[in-house]
């Protein structure tokens, strides 16, 4: 492995710095850390726990569906499993794992020492974790959500689902949505205000662009799902009638609200995944990404158009034809930005020198799978075709090609690409390639036949099917494929565990990559950069050799640029457009407050769930006390110019 050494940052007393930034050992440090890298890794590991849990649910379901009239599972358990599989994959794996990568990588890629709001960052993780535990605790009490992940009302109304099952789902979504919102605010401010001097918007790595689009989309979309499920919970818990037709409510309103979030959500997941691909492909093509501005523009365009397509989930609900034609058109148009990205990737490889590492294989696998998922996506935008295939296995195939193939494959690629940076150890390439091929083959055996099953008339979400329908052979094939796919993911899990102890040391820049996260050691120190790098190129590590680092200036605004800033636990704040220093942001010390507030909120949701006023009020009280305390102590790092000297 070629290791390119960049000149070390200006000499500082590193041991002293490390000590200064060090978290307390053991559990106190674990609960109170605000280090974006620890939090990011935590996100990733927690998400993968949920990923494997939901994957096991899928395997059990495939065991049930492998043969007709099978009785491995009863209908209730099956319905619970497919609900929790979808809920987990969307809310507890895909969305947060991308936030996890963003958390870890964005400050490094921007050349700064932490996120803009480190404590808020810890807070969003704790909410996510507690939200996940909240939803999964439904297994302990045997009231697992069973309304499907998008839980249409009236099925999820109190009349037709009186149990706690739906409340675990509805309240859990509101709760975890909070985490996404808080995280997105943090990303946006970090990206606009903490970039290293010289990193203008058109020099940001594409992954940063993609997380910026992710965050803005989340900011505008998440309120819709919060309201959809939140108003439904008001109906359920407090007897309002938003979605009760008998009292003037509308069940379609729920669908509009849900999909106003739901379709952007697909792109919320997909955009950062393509951002990862746009980092991996150029690195292993040894060539800058073709059409950088086209790609960045495509990401932004997707963000906008994705808010105009939600109704294509509702083509069978009897809407006026004109409305449907509009949304059908928008759904066709949204493929264009993806096409732009596609050809940018092809051009990059075409003119570059491709090295087939595991990460690159996952990227190429992604291209081949997403191509098909995109094409079937165009098909379902065509109204008359959609009426035939919607809610059939064709759609199950389509969205797994998109959400599994085009999001999970890039995430696995990202694991192989960035895990060496995060742990300091290389993953085994041999095991990695094996894992890729097993996953790729298993994926296609699993999901390709589902298209045909849809054509044969198999609806989604049925726990069994009759012998005489001729679906048995393909279903058996799908089930075998899913086992193969599962095995492939397990190989990577093993690879990760093995490399933690035995993997070769990664060095700062094992891939000869271009962005700033590779300028610091692997794993990076808590402060990321003793001195802030100065950027003059879109590819600082390729074009700026040696990479220059800033020194602290005389003025208060530039005091944080050099190692002196790291000593004071500061990171420079720069102006949003031209990245000129504006001041310094104090990186807060460890604190339990985010954890305390998150626990308070969790107690509030538990109170709502069990209708226990005492628990709920106590939770609100704890959260409010924590938040006020937090706000009070925040004073000193609110504004760069606000800190008392010394």
């Amino acid at each position, binding site marked *: 492995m070629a290791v390119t050494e960049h000149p070390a940052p200006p000499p500082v007393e590193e041991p002293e710095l490390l000590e200064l930034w060090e978290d307390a050992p053991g559990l106190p440090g674990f609960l109170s850390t605000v280090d974006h890298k620890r939090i990011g890794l935590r996100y990733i590991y927690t998400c993968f726990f949920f990923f494997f849990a939901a994957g096991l649910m899928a395997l059990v379901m495939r065991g049930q569906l492998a043969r007709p009239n099978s009785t491995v599972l*009863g*209908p*209730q358990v099956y319905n619970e499993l497919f609900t929790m599989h979808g809920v987990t994959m969307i809310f507890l794996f895909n969305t947060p794992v991308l936030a996890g990568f963003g958390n870890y990588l964005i400050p490094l890629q921007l050349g700064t020492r932490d996120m803009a709001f480190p404590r808020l960052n810890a807070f969003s993780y704790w909410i996510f974790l507690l939200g996940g535990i909240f939803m999964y605790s439904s297994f302990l009490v045997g009231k697992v959500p069973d309304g499907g992940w998008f839980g249409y009302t*009236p*099925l999820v109304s109190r009349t*037709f689902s009186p149990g706690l099952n739906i409340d675990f789902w509805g309240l859990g979504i509101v709760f975890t949505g909070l985490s996404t919102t808080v995280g997105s605010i943090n990303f946006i401010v970090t990206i606009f205000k903490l970039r290293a001097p010289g990193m203008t918007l058109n020099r940001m790595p594409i992954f940063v662009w993609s997380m910026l689009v992710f965050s803005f989309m989340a900011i505008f979309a998440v309120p819709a799902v919060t309201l959809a499920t939140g108003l439904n919970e008001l109906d359920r818990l407090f007897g309002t009638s938003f979605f009760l*037709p008998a009292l003037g409510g*509308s*069940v*379609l309103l729920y669908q509009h609200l849900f999909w106003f979030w739901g379709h952007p959500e697909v792109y919320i997941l997909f955009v950062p995944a393509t951002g990862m691909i746009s980092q991996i492909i150029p690195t292993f093509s*040894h*060539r*800058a990404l*073709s*059409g*950088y501005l*086209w790609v960045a523009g495509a990401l932004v365009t997707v963000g906008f158009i994705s808010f105009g397509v939600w109704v294509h989930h509702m083509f*069978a609900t*009897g809407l006026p034809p004109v409305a449907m034609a509009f949304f*059908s*058109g928008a759904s*066709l*148009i949204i493929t*264009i*930005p993806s*096409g*732009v990205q596609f*050809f940018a990737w*092809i051009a*990059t490889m*075409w*003119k*570059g*020198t*491709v*090295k*087939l590492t595991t990460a690159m294989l996952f990227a190429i696998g992604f*291209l*081949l799978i997403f*191509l098909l998922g995109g094409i079937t996506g*165009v*098909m379902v935008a*065509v*109204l*008359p*075709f*959609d009426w*035939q*295939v919607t*809610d*059939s296995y064709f759609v199950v195939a389509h969205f797994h090609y998109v959400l599994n193939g085009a999001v999970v494959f890039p995430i696995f690629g990202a694991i192989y690409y960035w895990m060496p940076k995060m742990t300091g150890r290389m993953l085994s390439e041999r095991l990695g390639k094996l894992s890729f091929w097993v996953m790729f083959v298993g994926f296609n055996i699993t999901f390709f036949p589902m298209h045909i099953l*849809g*054509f*044969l*008339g198999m*609806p989604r*979400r049925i726990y*069994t*099917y009759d012998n005489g329908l001729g679906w048995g052979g393909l279903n058996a094939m799908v089930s075998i494929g899913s086992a193969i796919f599962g095995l492939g993911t397990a190989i990577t899990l093993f690879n990760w565990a093995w490399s933690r102890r035995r993997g070769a040391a990664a060095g700062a820049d094992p891939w000869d990559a*271009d962005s700033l996260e590779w300028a610091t050691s692997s794993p990076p120190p808590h402060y990321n950069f003793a001195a802030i790098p100065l950027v003059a190129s879109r590819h600082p590590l390729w074009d700026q050799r040696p990479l220059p680092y800033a020194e602290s200036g005389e003025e208060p605004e530039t005091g944080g640029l050099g190692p002196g800033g790291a000593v004071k636990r500061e990171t420079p704040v720069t102006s949003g457009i031209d990245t000129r220093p504006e001041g310094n942001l104090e990186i807060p010390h460890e604190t339990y407050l985010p954890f305390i507030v998150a626990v308070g909120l969790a107690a509030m949701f538990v109170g709502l769930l069990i209708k226990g006023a005492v628990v709920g009020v106590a939770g609100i009280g704890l959260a409010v006390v924590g938040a006020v305390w937090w706000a009070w102590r925040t004073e000193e790092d609110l504004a760069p110019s606000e800190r008392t000297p010394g």
Partner: protein
Amino acid sequence: MLNTHGPEARTVSGVWWLMFALAAAVYVVVAGFIVIAVLRGRRTGRSKKEPKDDTFVWLGGIVAPVIILGVLAVVTVNTTQALRAAQDGELRIAVVGKRWWWDVSYPDAGGFRTANEIHIPVGRQVDLELTSDNVIHSFWVPQLAGKVDTIPGQVNHLRLTATEPGTYRGQCAEYCGIQHAHMGMVVVAEAPVDFDRWLTRRSTGAGLTPTSDLAARGEVVFLRETCAGCHTVRGTQADAQIGPDLSYFGSRESIASNTLANTPASLARWITEPQSVKPGNLMPPTTLSPEDRAAVVAYLEGLK
């Protein structure tokens, strides 16, 4: 879906084959680019300079898709209009999605009701008025037409025509609760003469009477036990509308929303242990002596 028996489904099938051809072409071309790029990229020398490939990017990424999507947009608009147009002389059928069966009635034929089996005449357009009084379901008979949801508080229309006689199976396509998987039905397309005879007999008669002593005893049991609390048999005191209308039960092809074939043995099983046939469904088990059970089965099977 590709084995179509109606013009509506056939139109969609035509759209599909057009899209399939386009999709195959696009996939081959783009995947070809990817593979060549990877292979080619493995040998050439390296240069990390900022590339100028914008022409390739916008030709492939914008111009080509716009052309293809333009074609699809035209197709969409044309077929959509064709599919949803009403015709004169339609046959109206009201379908209500229930948990987990289909209530079917013929408003133009005195409101005659049946369940899970929709008879239609071949060659005449049918206007299905779809609604629900509980959760959302979706009406789908793949060989005849696409789906339309049944939604509480609104009536949706689905127009379809069968061009050949036959029995076409359908199923609920929108997840609707524990027995979503067993919410099937059949559409029976018959020659217009046969259909008219079928409908007239049912819509004008005052109801059937037991045809044997055993069946007569069955009627007594049916009215005495819980059966009549949910079901209707026209001409008797049983007029509840919670479960399917059983007035002409004997002539139906299946039991429990196309879950079991309609035979005396499976009917006996369904009556006594519905929860093992279709776990979680809303029909409670009825405990009957063997004689009573045989009588009820004879009674219901005789209603045809």
